Each structure stands twice: as structure tokens, then as C-alpha cells.
């Protein structure tokens, strides 16, 4: 996708400003928060594989794993969607510090989804790595 944009831009737009706009789009598309959008499901499933967690807890684990740019609301939205899709279980547990917390955990569907998504990701990442290595060479 990225290469097509880069390749098309000089042909379609002769003016410098048009090129600049397209370059900005490419740079933005490579922004970590944009890249995250596609793989947030996978990231959330991954942190829930080790242990069940409530929203803020999942958020913290993602940050600790190095995904600093993840948006809070996106994580909560992703949890809702995965739950609605039947990939997660949900239960409420009281907490000492404050209100009850809603925990999410992987069920069979979630585990299957995680395995499948991991495969897809690995394939994609390998392909990209090879591509980038070839380009550099």
C-alpha cells in the first residue's frame, strides 16, 4: 500500500506541494498509532492470554510492553468489540480500592482467534521484513 502511494504520487501530481501532501500522508500512515489500529485486536488478545484483566489493567500491560501510543478509549472499544464477537468472557470482581471492576478473559473462540491472528501477523511481518531487506540490498 505504501509503495503504491509513493510510486503514484510523482506521476499524478506535477506540483511540489502535491507531492508534499502525499509524503505527509505516507509519514502519517507510518505513525505507530496508525499502525497500531490494525493490530490492536491482536495486541489485546495477546496480553489477555497470560491472565484475565480489566480495561485499565490491559491498557497498562500494553504500555509496559512498549505500545506507548495506544489510545485509552481504543482499548476499551476493542475489548467491547471482541466481547461482542464472542471472543472474550466478562465478569465483575470487587476491588479493595474502589468500584467493582469488569474483567475480560479469553475463551475458546478468543484463543483460536489469537492463534490464527498470530499466524497471519507472523506471515505478514516475515514478508515485510524480507521485502525491506531486499530493497535495502
Amino acid at each position, binding site marked *: 500500500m505504501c509503495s503504491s502511494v509513493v510510486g503514484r504520487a510523482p506521476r499524478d501530481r506535477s506540483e511540489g506541494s502535491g507531492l508534499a501532501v502525499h509524503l505527509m500522508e505516507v509519514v502519517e500512515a507510518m505513525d505507530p498509532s496508525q499502525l497500531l489500529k490494525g493490530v490492536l485486536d491482536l495486541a489485546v488478545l495477546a496480553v489477555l492470554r497470560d491472565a484475565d484483566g480489566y*480495561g*485499565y489493567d490491559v491498557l497498562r500491560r500494553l504500555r509496559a510492553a512498549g505500545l506507548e501510543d495506544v489510545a*485509552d*478509549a*481504543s482499548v476499551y*472499544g476493542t475489548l*467491547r*468489540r471482541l466481547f461482542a464477537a464472542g471472543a472474550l468472557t466478562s465478569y465483575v470482581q470487587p476491588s479493595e480500592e474502589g468500584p467493582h471492576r*469488569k474483567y475480560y478473559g479469553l475463551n475458546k473462540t478468543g484463543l483460536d482467534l489469537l492463534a490464527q491472528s498470530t499466524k497471519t501477523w507472523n506471515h505478514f511481518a516475515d514478508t515485510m521484513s524480507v521485502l525491506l531487506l531486499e530493497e535495502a540490498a
Partner: protein
Amino acid sequence: MNSTLTGPVATYLAQVRAELSDLPPGELADVLDDVSGHLTEVAAEFEDEPTAASLQERLGTPQQYADELRTAAGYPPRKATPKEKTGGETALRWGIAAAIVGPFFVVIGLANGTEETLFFGVIGLIALFGAAYLGVRALRGSNPEVVLETRRGQQAAESIRGMLDQVPPNVRHELVTIGQPVWWVARGVVGGGAIFAMSGASAVTVVGALAGAAVSVWIGRKTQQDRRWLWYVVPLNVIATIIVPIWLAFSFVGGTSSGVFGSGDDYSASSASYRESGLWLDGNQVDNIYPFDEQGRQVKVRLYDQSGNPINLPVQDCRINTPESNTDSVSNTFPQRTITDGYGSSENCKDSDKAPFVPPPAPATTPATPSATPTPPGASVTPGKTPTPTPPTSSKPGVTLTITPTR
């Protein structure tokens, strides 16, 4: 769950809720449960209670937050939901109308004379209850909190929260626990008292005030349970916040020693049934005064009250027939000449200051307790002598004169 949130955090949650109000109720409740938990955790990141600005810096605007949530959760894009929106907005609009128009007419009524009080008071109350009823009906059975989800409701709630945040928490607590019951009783006493004071009897006013206090406390409790009562209670509170200070000012300026209820009578006296000008004796209007000296001879006098104010009555002699005459002219010289013949005619008019009755013989031996009838003969007032402007003898015991200065 949401009840644990306060201040700007609660506002933020309400704004997110408003942005997501098109979701199905069950899903909305679930996701807001999550958001509420999230905001609790985020609030704990701050040392003090976060401000609206610091929350936005951390999470983005409520709109951005809701959009991120919506996209990630795969909810459909926001649809315009005019029905639900107008419900809250219409209800809010009617509520505001009730709180402005009703009190406006009632205050106009109170600022005017007796009949206007009743007329505008009734109009104001009809407008108030009518608008309040339409407001409650506009809710169509949904939670009254929907008005807080409208843009105007949000702004109002935010500014009120901002003001409340200025008040230290312990003072806030005191205001609610002590100030609220005191206010309930005060508005009930004034409201009930004012209505029954129109009857004029202070005993009735006291009973009315006590009954008003009881009703007011009951209404207050009821409103805590069912917030739809707010549509009626807030406008009535507006009226009360206008009347209570006036009432207090009146009892202060009136300076009577009998406290609120005594001065309440003064208040009603000046605003209601006794407002007519003129001279009154035991409930009957006095049009003229025929003074007689102690020998039973009619005399001409000028009358003054205890403060040296002339006791004026409108002139009623032939001058009122002339077109150029000022019909508002008054005189404190008695007896006044009254028209005996030729009413309405400036040429053939005749007037007289002769008493239209034969003075009854005065009691001979009771000079210490004169009655309201002419004083007995035997004292030394020279006939025809004009009295000096000193307080007249009309304030002796046995005589009840109600005098209101002519306006």
C-alpha cells in the same frame, strides 16, 4: 457505579454518554460501565481531583474519546436522533419557560394593588404549572437526566459544578445537611403565610405558614425521589427566592416587635385589602368630620396625626364641578363643605359645611372617657377658633381610627 464520580470527571462521563446516546440502552450501559471504571482509574493518576482541562489533556475531548471508542468497538457512526434529542431539549425549554414566565407574572402581581396581585398571580401560576406540565410530558417517561445530555443542559451543569467546586467540601456538606431543610421551612412559611395573610387575620396566617412549611418539606423529600418534580419546584423556588428577601426586608424595615408574623400582617396590609387611601373608622370609610366644641357648637378645625402629617381628605365641595379644577385636591380643614344641590353643574352648585345631623347631647359626667361622638360641653374651647397644628384628640382610648395617608 457512576455515583462514585464527582466534579469534572462526572461531567466528562456525562459528555461521553451524550456522544454515545444513540447506542442501544443495554450496550450503552455496559460500555459506560467500562468508561466509568476507566475514568476512576485515570482520576487516581492525579494527586488532586483532576480539572476538566487536565482530563482533556490526558484523554482528549469527550467527543474524541467517544469517537475512538466508537471506531474501536465497531459501533455504527452516530446517527442523528432527533426524537430523543428534542425530548430532552423540549423538556429543558419548557422548564426554563416555567422558571421565568411564572415568577415574572407573580412578581408583577405582588408589585401592584390588590386586584392585580390576584389577577397576575393566577396568570403566573397557570403559566408556571402549564409550562412545567408540558416540560414533564416532553420527557415522555424517559429519565429526567436526559436534559443534562443536551448541549445547553451540559453547559449549565458544567457551570454549576464549577461554582460548587469553589465551595470547600465541608461547607458544601453543611449547606446540604443544614441549609436545605432550613430553606424548605423558610419557603414554606413565607409561601403559606403570604397566601393566608390575604385573609388579614394573623391567626390564620400562622396556621397557613405552618401548613406551608409542612407541605414544603414534603415536596422537598418527594423531589429527591422523583426528579420530574423539579419542573414544578424550580420555578416555585425562583418565586420564593424573590419573595423571602422582600419579606425579611419588610419585617426589618417595618420594625414591629412581633416578628415575622406581625410584620407579615403589615406586609399583607400594605399589599392587599387595606390599600385604599382615605380615613377609616372600625372598617367604615369616613368622608367628613364635623367637630363640635364642648358647648355643642360646630367648630372649624385642621386635623393632624401624631407625626404632624395633615389628615387630608379629598375635597368634595363645588370646586369639583369646575372642569379646570384638580379633582385630586385635598384638605385637612374640617368640616369640609359638601355639595347639597346642583351636582355636575358649575353655576348652580350649592355646598355647605353644616352637619347633616343633629349632634346628640354629650354625656355630662364622663370627661375622662370621651366617645367617638362629639365631645361634651363644659370645657374652654372658644367657638370658631382654629386649632393650632398640634396632635388632635382623636387618639384617645375607645376610638379606633385607621389612617392611611392619601396618595
